């Protein structure tokens, strides 16, 4: 058969354009197409790896596509069993387990304790933490997690998360996640954390526009095989012993004196906490103030660690106790339950032994909260 190459080329181009247009119109949830929980086991925590370690940790960050992140997680593995009391943990890198293997994170340690809820169901804990201290990000995770029918939410954060220290994460938001974020903000009348982001243009929704996301999703699927083969989902580094010296400074972010407390308090994203309780309805949300490294070295009389001056952190703790009680929100303050030697590279990152200690400290409280 004689073939005219020009016609072939034109037809191919037309097909390509049509495919792109259809892709943009129907916006297929490609993130949900996953090898996880089917060909390979689901991950025990969300996919995440620093860009420079992607090849070593066999993992890639896909937070911008929460569909893909959830589809790769073990929580998406079938229906919730009838005898399971489901607890999801949300929070920052401390909860994700930056200094731990996936089987040594806080949620894994809680699972190891084999707790039984008040109603006799076995408690199973799911790690839905994700590095970055920004509780609005946690709210988006919670919104997606609702379909997995959690019975309880353990929400661990620290003052950094509450003041949105890592709110730059929104710069990494793309596509659907921007739309989700804006929708959640509007629904719960929240401050606009995504004001500088615009929803996708039509072109950005085409195959060409989404090529980076598609590549990331494919990479995540391929790494699923290495996850199954090795059990490795993170390149663990070794850190030098902690240098217990602090600057003689009482600054917290851009606040320089205790007199600025009212302005600092205004930064607290309390509307996000309210929204979470509204969003989750009957599901109990237990907020936990994360343990921090408490220094005993030079200048420790003015600072707890490199993150927090004492004045700001003390006021924060006092305020949160009051605000949570006032709103009748369950709240646990675990700020000082972990000894210095169990912190790794950052004042909220724990070694596995620290995760174990925290799990043991949390367990009795969690059991109590599991009762009506």
């Amino acid at each position, binding site marked *: 058969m*004689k*073939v*005219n*190459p020009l016609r*072939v*080329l034109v037809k191919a181009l037309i097909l390509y354009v049509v495919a792109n247009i259809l892709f943009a119109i129907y916006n297929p949830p490609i993130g949900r197409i996953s090898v996880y929980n089917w060909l390979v086991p689901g991950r025990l925590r969300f996919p995440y790896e620093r860009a420079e370690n992607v090849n*070593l940790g066999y993992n890639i960050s896909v937070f911008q596509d929460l569909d893909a992140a959830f589809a790769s997680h073990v929580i998406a593995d079938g229906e919730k069993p009838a005898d399971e009391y489901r607890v999801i943990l949300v929070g920052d890198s401390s909860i994700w387990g930056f200094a731990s293997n996936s089987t040594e994170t806080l949620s894994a340690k809680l699972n190891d304790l084999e707790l039984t809820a008040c109603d006799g169901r076995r408690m199973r804990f799911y790690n839905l933490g994700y590095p970055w201290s920004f509780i609005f990000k946690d709210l988006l995770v919670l919104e997606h997690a609702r379909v997995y029918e959690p019975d309880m939410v353990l929400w661990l954060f620290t003052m950094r998360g509450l003041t949105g220290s890592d709110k730059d994460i929104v710069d990494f938001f793309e596509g659907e996640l921007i739309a989700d974020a804006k929708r959640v903000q509007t629904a719960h009348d929240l401050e606009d954390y995504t004001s500088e982001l615009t929803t996708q243009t039509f072109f950005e929704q085409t195959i060409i526009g989404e090529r980076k996301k598609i590549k990331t999703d*494919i*990479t995540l699927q*391929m*790494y699923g*095989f*290495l996850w*199954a*083969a*090795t*059990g*490795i989902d993170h390149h663990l580094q070794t850190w030098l012993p902690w240098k217990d010296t602090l600057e003689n400074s009482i600054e917290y972010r851009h606040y320089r004196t205790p007199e600025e407390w009212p302005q600092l308090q205004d930064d607290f994203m309390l509307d996000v906490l309210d929204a979470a309780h509204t969003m989750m309805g009957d599901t109990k949300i237990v907020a936990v103030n994360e343990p921090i490294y408490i220094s005993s070295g030079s200048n420790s009389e003015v600072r707890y660690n490199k993150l927090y001056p004492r004045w700001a952190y003390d006021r924060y703790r006092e305020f949160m106790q009051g605000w949570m009680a006032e709103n009748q929100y369950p709240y646990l303050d675990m700020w000082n339950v972990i000894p210095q030697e169990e912190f790794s590279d950052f004042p909220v990152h724990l070694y596995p032994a620290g995760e174990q200690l925290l799990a043991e400290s949390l367990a009795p409280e969690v059991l109590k909260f599991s009762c009506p």
Partner: protein
Amino acid sequence: MSVFSVGVLAFAAFIVGRVGRGRELTLLAASVFFIYWLQPAQTISSLSFWLPTITLALSIFCWVLVAPPEVRAWGKTWPAVLVIVGTILLVDLSQFLGSKIFSATPRLWIVVLALAVFFALTFFTEKLPRRPIFFSAALWGIVLLFVFLKTPYFLNSFLNSIFTPSKEGVLFSWLGFSYVAFRLLHTLRDRQTERLPALTLAEYLNYVIFFPSFAAGPIDRAERFVLELRNPVALAEQDWVQAGTRFFIGLFKKFVIADALALVSFNDALAEQVRSPVWIWFLLYAYSLRIYFDFSGYTDIAIGLARILGIRLPENFAAPFLKPNLTQFWNSWHMTLTHWFRAYFFNPITRSLRTKQLPVPLIIFTAQLSTMVVIGLWHGITWSFFFWGIWHGLGLFIQNRWSEWIQSRMETPPPPHRQLVLNVIGMFLTFNFVSLGWLFFTLSSPLLALQVLMKLFGAIV
């Protein structure tokens, strides 16, 4: 090479392919330009310029040796020299445009001086009478250079002696040299045996540095290539479709399948980390498929681009993983390389051994083993590649003896359905044998490869 680079090459092929008069010289200019453009950046940055220049210098020097006087006449040569010098100077002058098209562009006077010295030397050499010793010296010179570059100990010692390495080490990559060396050796040897046709400088260089096949083959033969070059086939509509199809299939194989499989291909780290033999098998198969799709993808791209230029390059792969035995596998895997070795190593060795009245099995054993070891060492002179060669040499010998034995006992060929079953079993065994061989190829030490080999069969190491 990135998709972008391949796209640029395709565009260039399209343009150059449309040139009528002066096509040879236009192709030469494009090839010279691309060997500079494709050369990766080096730790010693100026090498990005000098390595392609040395490639050209070596090629011109070999041409001076192999070309008969009638084609060396200045009247026939000057246009090619002008194109080469002009393109090199244009590459170097790009520094004044403030562009970063090329990784390195030395000072102009240095380049002019280097070119002047080189052409003076070439002119002097051209005047010398052709003695057989020159050909042998050139052959061995290229072989020694090849050995030096492919031996990590020699190369690293040399680089470390002239450069203080950073923690990333000294990056040294001479793009296309492995293939250029084979083409040069082929022409030198064929000139010795007087089988090489007379090639003008433009024809010779177009053969050696032909840009579609410069980086990853196939390794064509000069006499075949030059026929196509001299008589370019006008592309019919059907040819365009075939060239385009081949090109796009190559792109898909390389940049979609191979690059995705690369993420899960077996390596040193995984050899330690993988928890079960089943997964090691899986990752090893992924490596096998990746290396096939990567290499055959590049070949498809090269063949497609060359076709657009009106030149038919030889095939390099013919469904090797569907072959029922190892001999057939090697007849369909990197075929142009195996043809080269058959012509210039296996056949001469076999002929030489036959004169010594040795038993046939011993001749086969020696010839196959040594050929495969040399093919292994072509990838790099390390123990790993040595043992990879041994693995395949032994495999070929055992398969050869087995076939001989089984055929001597079969009175009639098996019925078709039985032959089909035998072929499928053969395919399975061949694929697994080849895949296991990759352990020596990909892992950094033969000992580690051996450990993994034992793990694959359930041994606790």
